[in-house]
């Protein structure tokens, strides 16, 4: 048996994360290192389907975590981008292929070496996950753009000819939002802070054009 309950684990262990194309290089360059590692239970997150060929008898499992190898800024950005995309896999069954592709394209556009500096706060996956949760909950996939706040929270905007709605998704169950609606009497501004669930009600009010009636 390769798996054991975490509470019986003797020590924690870590996975080094790396890019896929490094497989041959990794195996070629560091075969000796591979013999030093403690066997781990299984993928620790994101619930992958695994097809696993084990080449020696299993040993007791350990608590498994994931750390990034010391890497360049470019690699750090890549790992951050991949972590957001992997987070999306948790919601793949609730997203269309087109929506998933649109999210990935936007993430690719936002997270790049030209626009990011080493001191910038990278996007927080918990914040991004809350945005995904909100989308599935509200069943509204009409966002126009995605950005990142100075703190690493995900910013989302919905732009229409007579409406601009923006939201900042926090790592907790919290959203701060603003709306600007063009009315006959001039622009109307509103701001709010609420839960993800209540923001669905708020946002859909604006996005369904309820505020313009």
């Amino acid at each position, binding site marked *: 048996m390769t798996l054991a309950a975490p509470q019986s684990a003797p020590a924690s*262990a870590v996975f080094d*994360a790396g*890019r896929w194309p*490094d497989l041959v290089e990794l195996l*070629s360059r560091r075969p000796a290192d591979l013999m030093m590692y403690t066997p781990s239970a299984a993928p620790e997150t994101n619930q992958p389907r695994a*097809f*696993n060929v*084990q080449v020696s008898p299993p040993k007791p499992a350990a608590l498994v975590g994931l750390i990034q190898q010391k890497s360049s800024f470019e690699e750090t950005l890549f790992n951050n981008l991949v972590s957001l995309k992997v987070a999306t896999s948790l919601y793949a069954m609730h997203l269309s292929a087109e929506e998933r592709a649109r999210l990935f394209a936007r993430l690719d556009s936002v997270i790049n070496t030209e626009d990011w500096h080493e001191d910038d706060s990278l996007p927080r996956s918990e914040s991004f996950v809350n945005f995904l949760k909100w989308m599935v909950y509200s069943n509204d996939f009409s966002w126009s753009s995605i950005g990142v706040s100075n703190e690493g929270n995900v910013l989302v905007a919905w732009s229409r000819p007579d409406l601009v709605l923006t939201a900042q998704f926090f790592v907790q169950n919290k959203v701060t939002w603003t709306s600007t609606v063009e009315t006959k009497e001039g622009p109307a501004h509103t701001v709010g802070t609420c839960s993800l669930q209540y923001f669905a009600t708020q946002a859909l009010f604006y996005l369904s054009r309820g505020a313009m009636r």
Partner: protein
Amino acid sequence: MAVDRVETNSERAGFKMTAENAIDVILINSDSFGSARLAPYDRWENLVAGARSNFETFTKVVGRKQITRIATRFINRFDIPTEKIEGHSFAKFVRVGVSLPIAVSHVIGDYSLAVTGFEVSTGAKFLIQNGTVPPALLDHISISLDIDAYWDSEIPTRIEEIWEKAETLRDAKNAIFENCITDEMRELIQ
């Protein structure tokens, strides 16, 4: 008892490599090599084809090793709307679970279990882990059904025969899955 000092000790377990598509993953330990696929899932045939290709690369680099275990692991997460589970037993959705004497509690909250056995139709060994997990969606509860089907004896030495043996694990994990969920769950995940 007061604790003056807490020490932690961690050591490298292996490598996890994620493809740029963020759904194909390779896991390398000192004694195992695994290919994994995240959602959205693909056909079994494609999963195996990828695993074979990765394993061929692995073998070219490190050479042939004696294989002592072949396994496939499917980690299923079910998201159940809160209003569908409130006031009901988990047995409404999964046919594996835990029970408590009424004298202890009238309700079962979060739970987890692990059970091993031999799958009836194939004879493959299995480890099933089932329980509640942190909800992935708002106003839902999530249940994990983690199926690890494997062979750890009488592993053939010829590579083609190894993969043929691995193929039987597909039937094992399918049989376990289908027998562990209810029609209510089938309706929910359709």
